[in-house]
């Protein structure tokens, strides 16, 4: 009886996820200057998201310029030919909207969420800075300070964060493009010049290196007209190259210890180099992640938090910490962050995690558990699509990474099609101790009462 109920649920939710009312409308086209445009209409609430994504991130930085992509992102809010300093914020907020920008390993994004009839306002702002960013020394100096303050606030003054941003990438990557610090060093930030900013702008912030996504209460013909008006005559530039992210062959397991003066509870990052985006193994490892850490009945919660009473908090996903399954662009790891009970040693913690993985490698997952994991995955997918902002973000990623924004309507099916045999095979191929990187973060209060640090192994 119970089994029947679960089967019914399974079947009915699948049909819902595929049913016509669930299709996100996607209309995509390209302007003459190469700007890719995606429109998705939803008239339920009079709100629109304008989301601009540029195909450049921290992995495009050059040696001596760590943190530059992020510093540049700050410069994008400092004004342009027709938008004085401060007016970007003022214009969005005084029209009832909100905004932000963020820098990632492989992309940089900017968005405005506004009442729907303010669409032109956001397009005016986004196009003016793409066309004519104001690059001067005063703005640069000021934003260097803001970025350094951001580094102090979000990393240097927080437990665990410095280890994660500066040290973890050096363990899981060996190509400098991927292994350097995304937030950057003060030394590199200080050395950036106005000429560097101008060059980066011309190279990467061109219409042909960007995708513009509009989601919400749109009138499509009107929206197209406005996009052409504001962006149509911004000149294109030579197509910039993606950085060479090839990792050297001959990977070896690595473990390092970081003594953290601000931490009070031990933590650990465990990661394994991951597969190619949207390959069968990518979907399989995404399912592995959901089995291990997805819902309240995930294996980490039931076996490690509850059973072994060792793990206190956990986070994990493909691409952790700076990417996720959606914006994952290889090479990226599958990585796990744990805060754990000080009564457990780091070696015990590592072997408990590896044992959980061994179970996945050695025993096929039973049908009932897999069904539950898939149901959870499906429900969170639907929940995520509620806001225009997250719909825009998904459309932009599928456009940028795959050239197919319409994947927003089919990718869930691909994620759910994973079989028990594929899960076992991917766990065996990727999540083995000989490809593993471990960063042990050991509390080391200034007074010296923390546990003695171990040497690197």
């Amino acid at each position: 009886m119970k089994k029947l109920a679960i089967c019914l649920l399974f079947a009915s939710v699948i049909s819902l996820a595929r049913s016509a009312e669930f299709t996100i409308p996607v209309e995509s086209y390209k302007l003459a200057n190469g700007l890719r445009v995606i429109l998705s209409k939803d008239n339920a609430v009079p709100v629109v998201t304008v989301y601009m994504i540029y195909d450049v991130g921290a992995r495009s930085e050059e040696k001596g310029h760590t943190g530059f992509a992020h510093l540049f992102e700050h410069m994008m809010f400092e004004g342009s030919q027709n938008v004085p300093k401060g007016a970007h914020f003022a214009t969005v907020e005084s029209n009832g909207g909100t905004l932000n920008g963020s820098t990632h390993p492989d992309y940089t994004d900017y968005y405005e969420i506004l009442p729907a009839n303010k669409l032109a306002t956001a397009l005016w702002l986004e196009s003016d800075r793409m066309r004519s960013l104001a690059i001067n020394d005063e703005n640069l100096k000021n934003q260097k300070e803001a970025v350094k303050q951001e580094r102090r606030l979000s990393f240097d003054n927080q437990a665990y964060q410095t280890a994660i941003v500066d040290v973890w990438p050096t363990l899981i990557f060996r190509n400098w493009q991927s292994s350097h610090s995304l937030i950057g060093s003060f030394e590199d930030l200080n050395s950036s010049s106005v000429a560097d900013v101008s060059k980066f702008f011309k190279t990467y912030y061109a219409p042909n290196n960007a995708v513009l996504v509009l989601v919400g209460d749109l009138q499509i013909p009107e929206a197209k007209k406005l996009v052409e008006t504001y962006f149509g005559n911004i000149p294109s530039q030579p197509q910039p190259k993606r950085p060479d992210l090839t990792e050297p062959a001959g990977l070896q397991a690595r473990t390092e210890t970081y003594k953290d003066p601000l931490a009070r509870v031990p933590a650990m990052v465990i990661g394994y180099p991951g597969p190619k985006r949207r390959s069968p193994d990518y979907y399989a490892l995404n399912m592995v992640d959901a089995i291990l850490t997805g819902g309240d009945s995930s294996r980490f919660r039931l076996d490690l938090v509850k059973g072994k009473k060792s793990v206190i908090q956990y986070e994990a996903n493909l691409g952790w910490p700076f990417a996720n399954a959606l914006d994952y662009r290889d090479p990226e790891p599958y990585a796990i962050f744990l805060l754990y009970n000080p009564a457990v040693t780091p070696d015990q913690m590592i072997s408990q995690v590896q044992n959980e993985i061994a179970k996945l490698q050695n025993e096929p997952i039973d049908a009932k558990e897999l069904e539950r994991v898939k149901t959870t995955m499906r429900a969170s997918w639907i929940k995520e699509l509620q806001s225009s902002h997250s719909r825009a973000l998904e459309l932009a990623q599928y456009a940028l990474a795959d050239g197919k924004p319409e994947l927003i309507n089919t990718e869930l099916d691909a994620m759910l099609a994973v079989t028990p045999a594929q899960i076992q095979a991917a766990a065996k191929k990727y999540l083995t101790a000989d490809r593993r990187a471990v960063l042990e973060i050991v509390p080391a209060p200034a007074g010296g009462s923390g546990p003695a640090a171990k040497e690197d192994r």
Partner: protein
Amino acid sequence: MLSRSLLVFAVAALELAAQTVDRTKPPQTPPIPSYKLPPVYETKLPNGLGLVLVEDARFPLVTVRLNFRAGTKFDPKDLPGLAEAVASLLTEGTKTRTSRQISEETDAMGGSLNGVAGADSLTISGSTVSESLSRLLTLLADVTLNATFPQDEVDLYKQNRIQNLRAERAEPAFLATEKLSETIYGSSPYAHISPTMESIGKLDPKVLAGFRDTFLAPNNATLLLIGRLPARAGLIDNVTQLFGAWPQKQLPAAPDVTPPAPRRQIVLVDRPGSVQADIHVGRSAPTRLSPDYFPLTVGNSILGSGANSRLFRNIREKEGFAYDAHTEYITKRDAADLAVVTQVRNEVIEPALRAVFTELESMASTPVPADELTNTKNYLSGIYLLRLETQDGLATQLNTIQTLGLPNNYLETYTTRVRSVEPGQIQAVAKKYIAPEQDAVVVVGDASKIGDAVKKFGAVTIIQAE
């Protein structure tokens, strides 16, 4: 023929528009549109359980909130953290379900179910795909009525809460919020924001069940359902079946939460090794039911909400002292507080603190210019719309109405009331609540680096972070 020429005309007009746009000025756009909330249906079961139903058919999901007036302000003096522990442990075992069964059942319906305690309320939140709603409600009723607080789950909760508290206490923002709250609220039950190591040690199944038995009663609760709902009569029958026999209880009187009169105090929480100083400057403020609430909301927004606020423009963009500078106006049911929050590098603590005081004084001494006021009213009206985009957003707004005891038309009239605020009203409330003479000042940082600078502002109490 006619339609064809119209089409040509339309295309020509489009091209004309594209050529003549004036890029030097922001586009002219219509005023922020009004938005009618989906209808809110309210009723009560005979035992007093409030029921609020909102049909939102866009997605096949339902968001559920069961709200009790039973938050951390009801924690006994020697047991801070009790409400929070009850909320967390309700879903860790009932008379007929283990913790594991509850989590497996929840996940099997693609749902979620968990309890959270705020200052005034304990809320059990859930969500599910629509066709599993009755299963989620069954589970919700079970954890509400039959939680057993199993000893091993309580022990694990205590063990992990102690470690989490140690981790929280390593964060400067936590230390600053904790100390400012104690300073503003004094002996009021609103003063504590977390448990202590000692109080966690005192938790046991009996004390948890005691709190549950006292406060979790139908006449103290409202059940909110938002989403694609089944037919109303059947849904009400379902809720009645599950919760109808739940007996009413005599509820204890709410504690006196009146905060002490505000006064200037400067506290430096010494956190050796800090590379920044976290500054929190604040005091008690009026609740949402006060006539001062809307003028102060608008004034507070001008001062410190968003990237166009005065604090962001001056402390960050002009001076480069900080990455973040904002205000927090936190309204509880029976009291509220208003604070400036910023984190500055050690060397500039003195000018930064002076700049904060200057901004606060200016709100009281000078009327807000008309265009700045209009901009902020637009901002608040637009943000209101943005918050209603998701089921969760609307649920949170409606839950706040229950928690704070606000009138039913609060959301409908919000924008109108924001729009009606005048500069004179803002200046009047700024003199009462924003002028900094009686503000408490809490700084978390390395006393050996910033102590002398902080002492320039008056007598300083220095306490250790650990």
